C-alpha cells in the first residue's frame, strides 16, 4: 500500500521535476530567470502596487488588450523557439546522425509548437485586438460584460501558465497538436503530457468561449447612436463573424477534451481502440471545432486588412456589401468542410466528394474579398506604410497558399499530399500570411491609438522583409519536400532521399524569420525610447476613417467623453471632409466599472484545479474547484461594482486634449 503522503500528491513526485532533458531544462530555467528578473525589476522600482491597481485588476478592455498581446508575443517567441528547434533537428538528423533532439523531445516540441501558436499566440493576438479596438470602433466605452472580459483574459493566462509548467514539471504531450487517439489514450501516452494539453486548452478554451459571447453581445448591443449594422467597420463585422464561430465551435472542443480526459482518467471508452470506443469520432469532433477555428483566427485578420487597405489607399472600402456577405458565407460554410482534414479515413466516395466540393465553395467568398481589397486600391492614393506592406505580402502568399488549398480539396489529389510537408507548408502559408501578417498590420496600425506614439516605420519595414523572404525560404522547400514524400513530424530520415539540402534552406528561412522577430522587438524598444519623437498628438496619425481616430491618443479609459453619433460609414472621414471640427458637446455623468481582483482570483483557482487534474491531486482539485465557485459567488453578490465619472471631470480632460490638437493644427 502506498503511503498517505504519496496519495496526497497524486502522480506528482520529486522525480517529476525535469532534470534530464537539457533542452526543456534550459527553457524552464530561462523562463524562471525571466520571471525573476521581472520580479526584481518591479521590486526595485516599487511598482508592485501600481501593477496590481492599474493592470492586474483592471477591467479596461484596452489594458486587457495590451496584456493579451504581451502574453501572445511571449508565446509567439516560445513557439518560434520550438520551430527553430524543429528546423535544426530536421536539418541535422539524417543518415547516421540523429540530430540535436531525442525523438521524444522532438515530438513534444512539435506538439507544443502547434498548441502554443494557435491557442496562445494567434488567439491571444486576436482577443488583444478585439479588446483594444472593438469598443472604440463601435463608439462605446466598454464591452458588454467588463468583469467577464477580465476573467476571460485571466483564464487564458492560466492556460498559458499550465502549458509552460510542463517544461519544468513532468512533460508535454508528444501526440501532435490535436492529440489524436488512440495515440493520446492512456495506453500509448501514459505520462501527464496529454493531460497538460487537455487542461491548458480546456481552461483557455472556456475563456475564449466567454470572450466570444462577450463580443457578440458588445457588437450587437453597444453600438453608438446611428451605427446601423451596415455602417459598422469591416473589422467589427469580421469580429462578429468570429464571435459567432467561437460560440458554436468552442463547446465542441470543451466536450471533446473532457471525453478524452474521462477515457484517460476513469478508464472510459469514448475514443479508445477497443472497448466500444471509436477514435475516428474524436477526429471528427476535433475538426468540427478545428476547421471553424481556422476561420475564427483569420476573419478578424481579414477585418484588419479591410481597415488598413481603405485607410492607406485613402479611399472607401470597395464592395462593402459583398464583403459582409462573404464573411457570413464563410461563417456558415466553415462548419461544412471539416472532413477534408481526413479524406484518407476511407469514408467513401460520396462523403469525400461532398466535403471536397464544400471546401472549394468556401474559396469563392474568400476570392471575392481579395478582389474587393484590390479594387479598394484602384484609383486610390496608396501610402506604403508598413501595415500596407503586410497587406500586400499577405495577398501574394495567401493566394499561393489558397491554390495549394484548392488542389488539396480534390480528395484523390489530397491522398497524395495528406500529412506530408506540403500540407504543413499549406497551412503555414494560410496562417502566417493570413493571421499573423494581419495581426502585425493591426498592431502597427492601432499602436498609436493605444500608446500615444507610433512605431518606427523603417524597422517595421525591415521586419516585414525578413518575415516575407524568410517565409518563402522556409516554406517553399516544404512544399517540394512534401511532393518528394516527406511526411510531417519526422525526426529522422535516410540520407539517400536527397531531402537534406531543402531542409537546410528551410532552416535558413526560419532563422531569417527569427531575425524579423528580433527586429520587431528592437522596433518596439527603439520606439519606446524615442516616444517623444513619435508622439501622436492629433489622435489621427494615418488620416483615418473610423471613430477610433476621433479621440485623442492614447485613448482615454472612458474612450469617448461624449458618445458619438454617426450618420454614415467611415464617420470620422466624413466629418473631416465636411470640416466638422467643433461639435457642441453635452457632457453627462457616466458610470464605469470598478477594477476587480475577482478575475485573477478565479483564474488562480482554475490553474490550481487544472494542475491538480493533470497530476491527479484530488484534494487540491477539490480546493481549486471550491475556491472557483466561491470566488464567482462572492463577485456576483457584490452590488458595488461601478463608479461615477463626473461630467465636469470628463469635460476638463476633454478640453485639455482638444487644446493639444488645436495647438498642433
Amino acid at each position: 500500500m502506498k503511503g498517505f503522503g504519496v496519495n496526497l500528491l497524486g502522480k506528482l513526485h520529486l522525480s517529476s521535476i525535469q532534470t534530464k532533458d537539457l533542452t526543456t531544462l534550459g527553457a524552464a530555467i530561462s523562463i524562471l530567470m525571466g520571471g525573476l528578473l521581472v520580479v526584481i525589476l518591479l521590486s526595485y522600482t516599487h511598482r508592485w502596487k501600481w501593477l496590481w491597481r492599474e493592470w492586474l485588476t483592471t477591467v479596461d478592455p484596452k489594458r486587457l488588450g495590451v496584456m493579451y498581446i504581451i502574453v501572445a508575443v511571449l508565446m509567439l517567441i516560445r513557439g518560434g523557439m520550438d520551430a527553430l528547434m524543429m528546423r535544426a533537428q530536421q536539418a541535422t538528423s539524417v543518415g547516421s546522425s540523429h540530430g540535436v533532439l531525442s525523438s521524444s523531445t522532438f515530438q513534444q516540441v512539435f506538439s507544443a509548437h502547434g498548441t502554443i501558436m494557435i491557442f496562445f499566440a494567434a488567439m491571444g493576438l486576436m482577443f488583444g485586438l478585439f479588446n483594444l479596438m472593438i469598443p472604440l470602433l463601435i463608439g462605446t466605452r466598454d464591452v458588454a460584460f467588463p468583469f467577464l472580459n477580465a476573467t476571460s483574459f485571466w483564464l487564458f493566462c492560466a492556460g498559458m501558465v499550465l502549458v509552460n509548467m510542463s517544461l519544468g514539471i513532468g512533460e508535454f504531450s508528444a501526440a501532435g497538436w490535436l492529440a489524436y487517439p488512440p495515440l493520446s489514450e492512456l495506453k500509448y501516452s501514459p505520462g501527464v503530457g496529454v493531460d497538460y494539453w487537455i487542461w491548458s486548452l480546456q481552461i483557455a478554451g472556456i475563456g475564449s468561449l466567454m470572450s466570444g459571447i462577450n463580443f457578440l453581445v458588445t457588437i450587437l448591443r453597444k453600438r453608438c447612436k446611428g451605427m446601423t449594422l451596415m455602417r459598422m467597420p469591416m473589422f467589427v463585422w469580421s469580429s462578429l463573424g468570429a464571435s459567432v464561430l467561437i460560440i458554436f465551435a468552442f463547446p465542441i472542443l470543451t466536450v471533446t477534451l473532457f471525453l478524452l480526459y474521462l477515457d484517460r482518467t476513469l478508464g472510459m471508452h469514448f475514443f479508445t481502440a477497443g472497448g466500444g470506443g471509436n477514435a475516428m469520432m474524436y477526429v471528427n469532433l476535433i475538426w468540427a471545432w478545428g476547421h471553424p477555428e481556422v476561420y475564427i483566427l483569420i476573419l478578424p485578420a481579414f477585418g484588419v486588412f479591410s481597415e488598413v487597405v481603405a485607410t492607406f489607399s485613402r479611399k472607401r472600402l470597395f464592395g462593402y456589401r459583398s464583403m459582409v456577405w462573404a464573411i457570413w458565407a464563410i461563417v456558415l460554410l466553415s462548419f461544412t468542410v471539416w472532413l477534408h482534414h481526413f479524406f484518407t479515413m476511407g469514408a467513401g466516395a460520396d462523403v469525400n466528394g461532398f466535403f471536397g466540393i464544400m471546401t472549394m465553395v468556401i474559396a469563392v467568398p474568400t476570392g471575392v474579398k481579395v478582389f474587393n481589397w484590390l479594387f479598394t486600391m484602384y484609383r486610390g492614393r496608396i501610402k506604403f506604410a508598413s501595415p500596407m506592406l503586410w497587406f500586400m505580402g499577405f495577398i501574394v502568399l495567401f493566394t499561393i497558399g489558397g491554390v495549394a488549398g484548392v488542389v488539396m480539396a480534390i480528395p484523390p489529389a489530397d491522398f497524395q499530399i495528406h500529412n506530408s510537408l506540403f500540407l504543413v507548408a499549406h497551412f503555414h502559408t494560410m496562417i502566417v500570411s493570413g493571421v499573423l501578417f494581419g495581426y502585425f498590420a493591426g498592431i502597427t496600425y492601432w499602436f498609436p491609438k493605444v500608446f500615444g506614439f507610433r512605431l518606427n516605420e523603417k524597422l517595421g519595414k525591415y521586419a516585414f522583409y525578413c518575415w516575407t523572404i524568410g517565409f518563402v525560404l522556409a516554406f517553399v522547400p516544404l512544399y517540394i519536400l512534401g511532393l518528394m514524400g516527406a511526411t510531417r513530424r519526422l525526426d529522422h530520415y535516410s540520407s539517400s532521399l536527397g531531402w537534406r539540402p531543402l531542409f537546410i534552406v528551410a532552416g535558413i528561412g526560419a532563422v531569417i524569420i527569427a531575425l524579423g522577430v528580433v527586429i520587431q522587438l528592437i522596433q518596439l524598444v527603439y520606439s519606446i525610447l524615442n516616444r517623444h519623437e513619435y508622439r501622436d498628438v492629433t489622435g489621427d496619425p494615418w488620416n483615418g476613417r473610423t471613430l477610433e481616430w476621433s479621440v485623442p491618443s492614447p485613448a482615454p479609459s472612458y474612450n469617448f467623453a461624449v458618445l458619438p453619433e454617426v450618420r454614415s460609414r467611415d464617420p470620422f472621414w466624413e466629418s473631416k471632409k465636411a470640416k466638422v471640427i467643433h461639435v457642441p458637446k453635452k457632457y453627462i455623468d457616466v458610470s464605469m466599472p470598478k477594477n476587480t481582483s475577482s478575475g485573477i482570483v478565479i483564474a488562480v483557482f482554475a490553474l490550481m484545479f487544472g494542475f491538480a487534474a493533470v497530476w491527479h491531486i484530488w484534494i487540491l482539485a477539490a480546493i481549486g474547484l471550491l475556491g472557483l465557485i466561491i470566488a464567482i459567488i462572492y463577485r456576483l453578490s457584490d452590488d458595488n461594482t461601478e463608479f461615477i465619472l463626473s461630467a465636469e471631470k470628463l469635460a476638463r480632460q476633454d478640453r485639455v486634449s482638444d487644446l493639444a490638437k488645436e495647438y498642433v493644427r
Partner: protein
Amino acid sequence: MKKKTRFIIAVTIVLVLLGALILYLSKINIPVLEPKGPIALKERNLIYFALALSLVVVIPVFLLLGIFAWKYRESNTKAKYSPELDHNGATEALWWVIPGILIAILSVVAWNSSHTLDPYRAIASTTPKIKIQVIALDWKWLFIYPAQGIAAVNFFEIPINTPVEFELTSDAPMNSFWIPQLGGQIYAMPGMNTRLNLMATSLGRYNGWSANISGKDFSYMTFVADSVKHSTFNKWINMSKRSHYHLTSDSYATLSAPGTAKVHVYSKVLPGIFYATIDKYMSPNNTSAVVGSNYTPARANVSKGGMQ
C-alpha cells in the same frame, strides 16, 4: 532613379532565384510527380489540372496587385483619384461569378474523381488481382499474403501490371499508408478495416511511408515495395514459403511489441490472423490476441464506406 535601380535589382534577384529553383527541381527526384502506376498518374494529373485552373484567378490577382500598387502610389499625382468609389455591381458580380464557374468545374472533377479514384474501387485488368493484408504495428508494417500463406515485414513484392488490393488495419495507434509513386494514402486504424487498390506499371523499388504519427519510433517506420516480373514474384513467394520464421500467435505477439524491426519474411501464416487482429478490439478485454487456427472472421466491424 535610385528607387528604380533598387527595383530592377530586386526583380533580377527574384528571377535568378526562380531560375535556380526550376533548374534544381528538374534535377531532383519528386516521387508524387513521377508516378509509376495508373492511380498515382491520375492523382498527379488532378494536381496539375487544379493548379492550371487556379492560374485563371492567380494571374489576375498578381497582375492587379502589381499594377494598382504601382499606378496608384501616393507620389503619382497624375493618376486618377476617386476616393468615393466604393462599389460597382457589374464588376463585383464578376468576381462572384468567375470564381464560381471555376469552382463549379472543379467540383465536377472532384465529385467524379472521388468515385473513379475511390481507394476501395478495384482496378480493371485482365490479370487477376493479388491481395495483401497490411497491419500497422508499433513501429513496423506487416504485409500478409493470405492466398500464399506468407508474410513480410517492412517490405513486400508485387508483380508488375497486376492490380493489388490492400486491406489495412492497425494493431497500434492509427497510421497512414503511403507509397507516393503508386498512389495516395489510406488510414490504418485499430479495430477497423480499410482498403486501397494500387498497381505498378514499371519495375522498380518504391519507398513507402507512415504518414501519421504513431509514437516514439514512427520516423523509422518506413518500408519498400518492389515491383518485379511475374516470374521473379513467384520465385520470391516460393522462397518465402521456406522461411524458418512462422507467423503464429506467439511470433505475432513478439513482432507486435513496441520497437522497430528489420526486413524479414514469414511462412506458414496463421489463417485469419488479419481479421482476428481487427476483431479482438471488439472484445472488452482487448489486450491479448485470441487467434485460433480455425478462426472464422466475424466481419461486423469492416468499415462500410466506398464502392464495394
